[in-house]
C-alpha cells in the first residue's frame, strides 16, 4: 500500500506493507536516527514526532501515519549545522552512546514548542518514554534546560567544571565550603595535580555531532544489496537432548537460503567470553550442539530473504527432544544426585563436571584459622545476590559479508573486536587474516558485548550462502540468550579483636554460571579479589565453587564480580560495626586499605599467570575526602535524628541513610594491553588510530584529549579512528575498567613519540636544540620565543626535506591496577505497612585519580549509579518452574525512567595516581559497586531490619519486616 505523509516538511509517498511499523518504513527510507530497542514501544529509541507529538514508531503501523506529519531528527538542521537542542545535548555531555539521543532531542523539541520555560518535572515527563541505560537522565535534563534558555534567546555559557573545596586537606585558592554548586561535575581539586590545557577539561565528545544528528553510525545503519536475515531457533526446554532434527520443510520454504544446526556445522569447542589468549578453560560450547542446556539455548539458525520468512522457517524445523531433569539453584546443582549438565567428552579444564563444578577457586593470605583463634569476636553472615541483565538499549546485532578480496567482514556491536576475530576464526575454519571485525558506534554494552556471541552465526550463514547476513536479537532474546550477571550465595566470616581491627576474614562463594562457563572463572576471581581487598586483615581465605545450572548464561556485566562481593561485604561490615557498637564509618576507617597497604590477595586472584613475587600496593587513595564530601551532601547527621527518621505526619514511613565504601581496580595487571598510532597530516592535525572500543563512554574523546595534551593542540585537531581489526592497532577491548588507564597510557606514549619527532623537525627549522623546544597552541616554541607551526613542520617533513612521516606508535601493559575508591551514600523511605522502598537520594564521591574529562567521568558515575540502583532495588530475572524467564521485556523487568529518579549527586575527588596517564585511574565500573549495600544499610537505619538478599522489592522487604515480629 502507499501512504502520503509530510516527512520533515516534505510531502512524500511511501510504500509499505499493512503490517509494517512506521519505524521499519522510516529506516528503509534512510532515516537511521529511528532505532530499534524493543518490539513493544517501551524503549522509545524509535520515537518520532507525529503531528508534533512524540510517539514510539515501533508500535505504530506506517499505515496509521497516512495523512499525518512526521518529523525525525534528520529534519532539524542541515548538514554542517546544528539545532540549538542538538547543541545543548552536546555541550552538557548528555550524549553517551547516542543510540537514543535523537529520540530525546525530539522529546525536547515537542516540549519546548509548547512551553519555552518548562519545569524539571515537565522535562522529566517529556523524557519518560525514552529509556536510558547510560546517563542516569541527569545530563539530558540539563540539556533540555540549556536548550530552553538558548531558544528563549538567553546567553548560555560554556559548560565548566564546578570546583568544590576539599574538606580534609588544604587547597590554596579554593575556599568555598559554603557555596556548593548545584550542578555536577563537581571536582574536588588536589594540589599535587599539575596544570593541563586539554586534559581535565569538559571537552566536547569527538563523536557528538554524528550522534546528535542521528547520522548513520551504528551496526544496522548500512544498506547492503542482497542482504539475508537470520533468525535462531532457541530451546524451549531447560535441559534436553536433541534426538532428531528435520529441517526439510524449512529448507523448502521459498526465500529460505540456509538452515544450520549441529548436523551440518563443524563441532569446534570454544569458550565465548571475550578474553585474552588463551581463553580460560573449559571450552564447553560449540556453535550448535545436540544438547540444549537452558531455555534460550541455540538449536538452529536460518538465513532467509526477510525476517518474516526466517521466522516462519523456524516454525518448520521439526526437533525431537528428550527432556532431561534440570537444576537452577547453584547450591542444588553441586549437591549429590543433581542432573549433570555437561556430560559430554572434552570437558578439559572443568574442575568436576560430574558434580557441575566448573571451577574451584581458592586463595589464602597467611593462616586464617590461626587468625580466628586470635579474634575476640567472630561474625558470620550469608547473603544471596540474584540474576539481572545488562539490557543495553541496542541489542546484539551483527552483519557479515564477503568483501571484494573475499575476506569475511563482520560489522558487529562488540566490546572486543580483536578477541572476536581470534575466537571466531577457528569456528568458521578461516585463518585470522581472512577476517575483519569492524566496531562502529554501539548502543551500550555493559559487559554483555564482551562476548563472541552471535558473530559465528552470521559468519556461518554468510559462508553458507555467499550473501550478506544480518542478525539482530529481539528484546526477549537479548534478555534470555545473551549474557547476564552471576547469581551468588556468599558467606562471610570475620574475626575482630578488642580494638575493632580485623584479624581474619573468610569469604565463601557458590556462584551460578548458568549453562556455560564463559566468564565463570574470572568473574568469581574478581569477587574474591574485591571482596577481600577493601579492608586490611592479616589473615584471609577465599573459597569459591562455580556451578553449572540450567539458567541463561551469566557473563561479564559492568563491575564483573565486584557488585556481588561488595553487597555482601558492605552489608557485613555495617552489621559488624553495629554489633560492636562502633560508628559504621569509623569502623570502616579503622580497617580500610590506605596508601602503602598491600593488595595482598591480588597475586592469587589475578586473571593472568599468578606471580606471587609481586604484591601491588595502594599508591593513591582519596577515600577520606570522598567520605567527607558524601557525608555533607547526604546530610549524614540526620540518620540519628528520630524526628527525621519517623516523620510524625506519615505514620507508615521510616527514613534512613546508608553508606558503602567502594574500592575497585584499573584494568587487569599484566594482561590488558592497549596500543595506539598517531600520525601528522599536512595541516598539522593528527590521525589517531586506536584499538580501544568506545561503548558510548567517551573513550575516543578522553584518549584524544590525552594525545592533544601531549601534542600541544586542541582536541579538534585529533581525528580518532578506532576498533577496526584491519586498520587500528590491537587492544584487548573495553572491559575491566582498562581503557583510560591502559589505552590512555598507550596513547600518551604514542603521542610522546610523535612529539619527539615533531620536536626534532622543529629544532631543524628553528636551528635550536631539541631539548629547548616545547609544543603548545599548535606551535613548536624555542626558549627565545620563536616558533614554527605544526602545519609548517608537517609540510617540511612530508614534502620538503629529509622526508619522513612523523608517526608514533606505542603499546602499554601495566603491572599494576591502582584502585579507584568511592563513598556511596543512599537515602530511603520505607513504607512499613507495604514494604515499598523509595530511594530518595544517591550520592557518590569518587576518587578516580585525575578525571581526563570531568563531564564524561561524571556521566559514568551518574549512569552507573542508576544501573546499580536497578540491581539493588527492582530488576530481576524471574523464572517459572521450567526455567522460562517470565519477565523478558522492559515493562515487567523494569529499568528506571526519567520521571522517577532519586536525586543524584556526584563528586570527583582528585588524587594524583602517578602510574596513570596524567594521574588518571579508572571510573567506569566503581559506580556499580556501592548502591545496593548503601540502600540495604539505609533500610536497616530506617527500620532496624537487615535484609541479606537483593533486590529490595516490596514483598521481600515486607516479609523481612513482618518476620521481625
Amino acid at each position, binding site marked *: 500500500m502507499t501512504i502520503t505523509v509530510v516527512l520533515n516538511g516534505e510531502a512524500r509517498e511511501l510504500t509499505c506493507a499493512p503490517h509494517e511499523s512506521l519505524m521499519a518504513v522510516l529506516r528503509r527510507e534512510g532515516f537511521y536516527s529511528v532505532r530499534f530497542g524493543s*518490539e513493544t514501544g517501551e524503549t522509545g529509541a524509535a*520515537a518520532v514526532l507525529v503531528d508534533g507529538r512524540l510517539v*514510539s514508531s*515501533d508500535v505504530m*503501523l506506517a*499505515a*496509521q501515519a497516512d495523512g499525518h506529519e512526521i518529523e525525525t531528527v534528520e529534519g532539524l538542521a542541515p548538514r554542517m549545522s546544528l539545532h540549538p537542542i542538538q547543541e545543548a545535548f552536546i555541550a552538557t555531555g548528555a550524549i553517551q552512546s547516542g543510540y537514543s539521543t535523537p529520540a530525546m532531542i525530539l*522529546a525536547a523539541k515537542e516540549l519546548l514548542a509548547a512551553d519555552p520555560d518548562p519545569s524539571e518535572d515537565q522535562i522529566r515527563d*517529556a523524557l519518560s518514554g525514552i529509556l536510558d541505560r547510560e546517563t542516569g537522565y541527569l545530563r539530558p535534563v540539563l540539556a533540555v534546560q540549556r536548550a530552553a534558555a538558548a531558544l528563549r534567546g538567553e546567553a548560555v555559557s560554556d559548560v565548566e567544571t564546578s570546583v568544590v573545596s576539599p574538606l580534609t586537606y588544604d587547597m590554596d585558592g579554593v575556599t568555598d565550603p559554603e557555596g556548593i554548586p548545584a550542578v555536577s561535575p563537581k571536582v574536588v581539586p588536589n594540589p599535587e595535580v599539575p596544570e593541563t590545557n586539554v586534559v581535565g577539561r569538559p571537552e566536547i565528545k569527538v563523536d557528538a555531532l554524528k550522534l546528535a544528528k542521528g547520522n548513520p553510525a551504528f551496526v544496522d545503519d548500512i544498506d547492503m544489496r542482497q542482504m539475508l536475515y537470520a533468525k535462531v531457533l532457541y530451546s524451549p526446554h531447560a535441559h534436553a537432548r536433541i534426538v532428531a532434527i528435520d529441517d526439510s520443510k524449512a529448507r523448502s520454504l521459498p526465500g529460505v537460503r540456509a538452515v544450520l544446526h549441529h548436523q551440518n556445522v563443524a563441532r569446534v569447542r570454544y569458550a565465548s567470553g571475550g578474553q585474552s589468549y588463551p581463553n580460560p578453560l573449559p571450552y564447553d560450547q560449540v556453535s550448535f550442539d545436540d544438547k540444549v542446556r537452558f531455555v534460550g539455548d541455540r538449536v538452529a539458525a536460518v538465513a532467509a530473504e526477510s525476517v518474516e520468512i526466517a521466522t516462519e522457517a523456524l516454525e518448520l524445523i521439526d526437533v525431537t527432544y528428550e527432556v532431561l531433569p534440570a537444576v537452577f539453584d547453584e547450591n542444588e546443582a553441586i549437591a549429590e544426585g543433581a542432573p549433570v549438565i555437561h556430560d559430554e567428552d572434552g570437558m578439559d579444564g572443568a574442575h568436576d563436571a560430574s558434580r557441575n563444578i566448573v571451577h574451584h577457586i581458592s586463595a589464602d593470605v597467611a593462616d586464617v584459622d590461626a587468625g580466628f583463634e586470635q579474634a575476640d569476636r567472630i561474625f558470620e553472615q550469608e547473603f544471596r545476590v540474584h540474576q539481572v541483565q545488562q539490557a543495553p538499549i541496542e541489542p546484539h546485532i551483527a552483519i557479515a559479508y564477503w568483501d571484494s578480496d573475499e575476506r569475511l567482514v563482520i560489522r558487529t556491536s562488540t566490546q572486543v573486536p580483536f578477541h572476536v576475530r581470534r575466537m571466531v576464526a577457528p569456528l568458521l575454519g578461516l585463518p585470522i587474516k581472512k577476517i575483519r571485525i569492524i566496531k562502529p558506534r554501539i548502543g551500550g554494552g555493559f559487559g554483555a558485548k564482551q562476548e563472541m556471541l552471535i558473530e559465528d552465526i552470521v559468519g556461518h550463514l554468510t559462508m553458507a550462502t555467499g550473501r550478506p547476513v544480518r542478525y539482530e536479537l529481539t528484546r526477549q532474546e537479548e534478555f534470555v540468550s545473551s549474557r547476564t550477571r552471576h547469581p551468588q550465595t556468599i558467606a562471610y566470616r570475620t574475626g575482630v579483636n578488642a580494638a575493632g581491627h580485623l584479624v581474619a576474614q573468610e569469604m565463601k562463594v557458590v556462584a551460578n554460571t548458568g549453562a556455560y562457563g564463559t566468564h565463570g572463572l574470572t568473574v568469581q576471581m574478581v569477587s574474591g579479589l574485591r571482596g577481600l581487598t577493601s579492608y586490611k586483615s592479616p589473615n584471609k581465605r577465599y573459597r569459591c565453587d562455580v556451578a553449572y545450572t540450567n539458567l541463561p548464561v551469566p557473563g561479564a556485566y559492568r563491575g564483573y564480580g565486584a557488585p556481588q562481593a561488595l553487597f555482601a561485604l558492605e552489608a557485613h561490615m555495617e552489621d559488624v560495626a553495629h554489633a560492636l557498637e562502633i560508628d559504621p564509618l569509623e569502623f570502616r576507617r579503622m580497617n580500610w586499605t590506605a596508601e602503602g597497604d598491600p593488595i595482598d590477595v591480588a597475586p592469587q586472584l589475578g586473571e593472568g599467570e599468578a606471580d606471587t613475587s609481586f604484591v601491588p600496593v595502594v599508591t593513591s587513595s582519596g577515600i577520606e575526602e570522598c567520605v567527607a564530601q558524601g557525608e555533607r551532601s547526604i546530610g549524614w547527621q540526620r540518620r540519628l535524628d528520630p524526628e527525621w527518621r519517623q516523620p510524625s505526619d506519615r505514620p507508615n514511613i521510616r527514613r534512613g541513610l546508608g553508606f558503602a565504601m567502594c574500592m575497585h581496580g584499573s584494568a587487569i595487571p599484566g594482561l590488558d594491553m592497549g596500543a595506539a598510532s598517531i600520525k601528522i597530516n599536512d595541516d598539522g592535525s593528527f590521525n589517531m588510530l586506536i584499538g580501544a572500543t568506545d561503548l558510548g563512554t567517551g573513550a575516543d574523546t578522553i584518549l584524544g584529549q590525552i594525545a592533544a595534551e601531549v601534542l600541544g593542540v586542541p582536541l579538534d585537531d585529533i581525528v580518532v579512528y578506532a576498533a577496526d581489526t584491519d586498520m587500528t592497532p590491537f587492544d584487548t577491548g573495553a572491559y575491566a575498567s582498562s581503557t583510560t588507564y591502559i589505552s590512555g597510557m598507550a596513547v600518551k606514549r604514542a603521542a610522546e613519540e610523535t612529539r619527539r619527532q615533531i620536536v626534532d623537525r622543529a629544532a631543524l627549522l628553528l636551528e635550536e636544540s631539541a631539548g629547548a623546544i616545547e609544543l603548545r597552541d599548535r606551535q613548536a616554541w624555542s626558549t627565545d620565543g620563536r616558533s614554527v607551526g605544526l602545519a609548517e613542520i608537517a609540510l617540511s617533513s612530508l614534502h620538503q626535506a629529509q622526508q619522513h612521516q612523523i608517526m608514533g606508535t606505542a603499546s602499554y601493559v601495566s603491572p599494576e591496577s591502582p584502585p579507584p575508591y568511592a563513598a556511596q551514600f543512599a537515602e530511603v523511605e520505607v513504607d512499613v505497612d507495604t514494604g515499598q522502598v523509595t530511594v530518595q537520594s544517591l550520592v557518590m564521591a569518587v576518587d578516580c585519580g585525575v578525571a581526563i574529562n570531568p563531564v564524561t567521568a561524571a556521566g559514568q558515575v551518574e549512569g552507573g549509579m542508576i544501573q546499580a540502583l536497578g540491581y539493588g532495588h527492582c530488576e530481576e530475572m524471574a523464572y517459572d518452574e521450567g526455567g522460562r524467564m517470565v519477565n523478558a521485556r522492559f515493562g515487567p523487568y523494569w529499568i528506571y525512567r526519567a520521571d522517577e529518579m532519586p536525586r543524584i549527586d556526584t563528586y570527583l575527588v582528585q588524587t594524583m595516581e602517578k602510574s596513570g596517564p596524567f594521574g588518571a585511574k579508572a571510573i567506569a565500573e566503581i559506580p556499580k559497586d556501592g548502591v545496593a549495600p548503601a540502600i540495604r544499610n539505609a533500610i536497616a537505619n530506617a527500620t532496624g531490619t537487615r535484609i541479606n538478599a537483593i533486590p529490595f522489592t516490596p514483598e521481600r522487604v515486607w516479609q523481612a519486616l513482618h518476620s521481625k515480629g
Partner: protein
Amino acid sequence: MVTIRAYHRPTTLAAALELLARPDVEAIPLGGGTEINGLPGRVPSEVVDLQALGLADISRDGATLDVGSMVTLRDFIEHEWTPPLLRDLARREGPNTIRNVATLGGVVATADPESGLVAGLLAYSAVVSIAGASGIENVVLTDLVGGGKGLVGSIITSVQIALGGDGTFEATARTPADTPIVLVAGHRSDDDSLLLAATGVAATPVLIEPDGIEDLRPPPDFRGSADYRRHLAGVLAARVVGRLPEGGPA
C-alpha cells in the same frame, strides 16, 4: 506483532462495523495500536483503524462527561473536565510516547489486568457505549470488564463518566513509576456512596469491598504472592477509605 494482512481506515461507523462483521475475516478494531502492534505472535488479522470516525471529542452533558473512544490518554489528561483521580491514573498508564497515541477506548477494550485507569473508571461507575449491528448499547463498565459483554464485531464509541464527588488512589510498586503490584482507587460520589476498585487482585481490575478483602483470590506472580497482594489490598483500601471520609473531608 500480529501479522496484519490488510489495513482499513473507514470514515463512517457503519462502514467500520461492516468491515468487522465479515464472517470469513478475522478483523480487529485499532485504537492507538500501542498494544496490538507490540503483541508477540503471528496471528493473521486485518485491522480497522478507527481514527477517521470522529470519535475523538470530549463533551459534557450536565454532570456527565462523554469521552470519545479515540481520545488519546494525553488529551484526556490535559482536558479541564477530567476528574483529577482519572487524570492521575491515566498518567500512570505509560510514558508520554504511549500516552500520546493510546486511546481511552483502547484501554477499556483491552482491560489490562494492571490498568489503574480501568480501576478508576470502575470506581467512577463509568458507562461504555458500544456500537454493534443492533445499534448503540450502553454497558456498565463492570459488566464489560467482567466478561459479561463481549466486544467481537463491535466498536466502543465513548465512555461516560459521572462527574462530581472525590477520588483518590493508593498503590504499591517496585519504583515510583512502575506498574503497581496492587492499586486501589476510590471514588466517593456526591451522594456519599463509596466505590473501591483494585488492580492486582484478580484477573482484571475489579470492584472490591473493604470487608471482602479476605475473599479475594489474587493471581500471584514474581512481584507478589496471593497472600501479599491480599495484604496490600487491605492496607491500601484502608488508606483510600481514610482519605475519602463520609460527608467529605473533615
